[in-house]
């Protein structure tokens, strides 16, 4: 991974706000769409539940970070283009 330029306080605030919105959206999505199914899996099938649990936490940690990074890159290029 190439070393990213260090963000200013303002950029960091924007990044954190964007991240907060996405992470709450992700959690809401999980709660609304698959909460019950995940609870059933936890009781019924250990292996599948383990895979799903790991995927959910890795998804929240890894994918959201990548999405935010790319969104910020897009916003920066859009701002520079104006």
């Amino acid at each position, binding site marked *: *991974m190439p*070393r*990213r330029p*260090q*963000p200013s306080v303002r950029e*960091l605030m924007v*990044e*954190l706000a964007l*991240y*907060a919105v996405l*992470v*709450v959206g992700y*959690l809401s999505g*999980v*709660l609304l769409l698959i*909460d*019950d199914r*995940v*609870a059933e899996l*936890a009781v019924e099938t*250990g*292996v599948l*539940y*383990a*895979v*799903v*649990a*790991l995927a*959910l*936490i*890795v998804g*929240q*940690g*890894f994918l*959201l*970070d990548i999405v935010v990074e790319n969104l910020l890159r897009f916003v920066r290029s859009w701002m520079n283009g104006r």
Partner: protein
Amino acid sequence: MDFAISGEVIHPAYLVTVGFVIGALGGFFGVGGSFLAGPALFAVGVPMNYVVGTDMAHITGKSIVAARHHRALGNVDIKLGLLMVIGTVIGVEVGAQAIEALERRGNVEVPVGISFTVILLAVSALIAWESWRTIRQGRALRAPKPPTLVDITSLSHVTRKVHAIRIPPMISLPASGIPAISLWVILGVALVGGVFAGFLGGGAGYVRMPMLVYLIGAPTHVAVGTDLFEIVISAGYGTFTHALKGNVDIIIALVMHTGAAIGAQIGVQLTRHFSGPRIRLAFVPLPLIGAAVVIYKLLTGTEVG
């Protein structure tokens, strides 16, 4: 909020706040934070088996965010982290097996617990003395601004002696600025950290991070980032095995992670504004918390992390 998997009702704001605090500490110090997350979950009535597994899951997510941001700052030595994983896994197993074997012979929990407490107090005192001395000597002020591969400690003579151990294979760690170090030293350090983790639960980052700095010779910022990278792998493995045993309430972990992810990013960014000795000085209370965990366990017979 009703968490169906563990059958608990917990206010999500509590979980988000706990996650935020642990995330910020983890991002800044490179520790998992189970010594806080464990008691925090236990305090609201989460059964102990779910405490341990759910804590692992939340730590995995938080460490991914923190490690990614540390890597972006150039603070992760992946080669060192991967080698450490090997020693840590063996150490955790050795620690757990040793405790079981000792327990079969009789009640050894008290003498072992007291020994660990003394070690943790000594680690805390050593870091306090070293970092305070380095800062007072004004050497920290002359140290280059992070990120850098140069760090100044008052225990550099110890690091030099460790580097003088020439048992092959010797390996280089360019990301940490270490030209040659014995593989056995790295595995040994990771093994010791793993034994602590096996006995105390959690990741025992409060022991591993100082060893990375003083024994391996990694700059403090790289030690923090590399420790987090290692935690991603070991806690991810722990999450999977605990989930197989039905010990993970992943929804609690996801709620905690909403706060932890934000806290971790703030913690990582804060490391940019502190020199290595100042981070180490702020680190001093963490082994003390580890000692408190051991004392609590000895007094009550209850795991808290």
